């Protein structure tokens, strides 16, 4: 990216009692997690979670006005702006990363929407990773019963299994299988007694200045491998690749069509796109339901692979429809260009 690197804002989600706060508490005690500001969203008039985390108080903000997913646009935007102002003034500990711990009942999608589309946020912050915790003991039952818990998994970049000390091996294996059905591309990690290595946990950006795009390529490979073998009838993951560059206006129309016709069924879309008008600088796209982040333009291709690559996590959106939509819009835009 050009200019000062934006500060990544990551989202820690997971159903009630899945161990988010315990894990966050452990993470904040690790040295390489020290420059982290934390926003904790608690549902209820009296917040407790922020009291349970031992770290410098000036970098923790508790949002107790309600569930973030219901009031996200005003509360979260204001809170992030306040944090940035305090950082600029030097009136809080300096931070290079923000983590938002959602309430256990929160649908993460509106939070991601706010992070992707608020112009004030977008100027200085960027969407980091989405990490979801799952209680290994109760996870299977929760995923069966609670639709929001399935959505929390489906949009995650990383899934962390917690409470492993109480679970049997068979339970963990079954849970891993269910998680793979919901989100094949996300690595599943283990937190033992809440402890997990912070390295890599919140570093799931599509592209890294030093390492290229290994994370994205790995997810793409899994999506391609798993796309035709999903056992979940609701949520499927697949990859769409195109060798020929796509015209910028065709990409815009494609995203509009996806948003208009898929809405809530498009759980997440990530992609690195080859744009005809910008052959040396690919565009990174993010979408959650009917909301799309403004494309971010990379300084260069992260690897020798210059194809457009998209990973879709959807609820019952056929891959074939997505592919034909992209090709048909591309052909129409090309035809208009020729006629002009």
């Amino acid at each position, binding site marked *: 990216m050009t200019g000062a690197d934006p500060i990544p804002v990551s989202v820690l989600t997971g159903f009630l009692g899945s161990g988010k706060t315990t894990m966050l508490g452990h993470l904040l005690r690790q040295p390489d997690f020290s420059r982290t500001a934390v926003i904790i969203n608690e549902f209820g008039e009296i917040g407790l979670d922020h009291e349970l985390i031992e770290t410098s108080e000036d970098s923790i903000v508790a949002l107790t006005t309600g569930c973030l997913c219901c009031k996200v646009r005003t509360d979260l935007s204001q809170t992030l702006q306040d944090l940035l102002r305090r950082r600029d003034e030097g009136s809080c500990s300096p931070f290079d990363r923000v983590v938002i711990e959602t309430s256990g009942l929160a649908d993460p999608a509106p939070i991601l929407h706010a992070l992707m589309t608020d112009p004030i946020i977008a100027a200085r912050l960027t969407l980091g990773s989405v990490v979801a915790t799952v209680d290994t003991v109760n996870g299977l039952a929760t995923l069966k019963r609670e639709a929001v818990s399935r959505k929390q998994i489906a949009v995650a970049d990383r899934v962390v299994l917690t409470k492993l000390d109480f679970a049997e091996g068979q339970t963990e294996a079954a849970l891993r299988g269910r998680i793979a059905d919901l989100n094949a591309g996300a690595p599943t990690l283990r937190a033992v007694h809440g402890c997990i290595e912070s390295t890599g946990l919140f570093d799931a950006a599509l592209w890294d200045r030093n390492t290229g795009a290994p994370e994205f390529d790995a997810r793409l490979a899994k999506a391609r491998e798993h796309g035709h073998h999903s056992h979940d009838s609701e949520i499927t993951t697949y990859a769409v690749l195109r060798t020929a560059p796509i015209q910028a*206006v065709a990409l815009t129309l494609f995203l509009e069509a996806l948003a208009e016709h898929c809405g809530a069924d498009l759980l997440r879309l990530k992609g690195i796109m080859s744009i005809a008008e910008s052959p040396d600088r690919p565009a990174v796209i993010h979408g959650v339901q009917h909301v799309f982040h403004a494309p971010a333009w990379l300084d260069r291709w992260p690897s020798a692979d210059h194809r457009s690559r998209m990973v879709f996590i959807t609820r019952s959106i056929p891959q074939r429809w997505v592919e*034909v939509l992209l090709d048909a819009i591309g052909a129409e835009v090309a*035809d208009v260009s020729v006629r002009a």
Partner: protein
Amino acid sequence: MSGAPVELACDLLTESLAAWCVAGTVERTCDGAITIGGDTEIRIEPAPRDSVFRWMVAIDGRKRPALSLLAVLRQVRKALEPDYAANRVRVAIAPLVPQ
């Protein structure tokens, strides 16, 4: 309009009906149009070359122009799914190419 966009539009409509789980049969006609047969009769054909529109969509005989395939899709879906309400699209404002 060249043949490729019409062919792909036909494929797109076929796949769209499947994706939306609505009944209907999509076919190409010998005069270059696309028809969708079912409870509602729909005919889609390229607009005349001197028109600012790309397509003409006739739904149960009533003709309306469409600027793009996206507009065609919207009209067809509204005709086949009376309860369909398009999602309000939010694509963040950004330049189409890097500045």
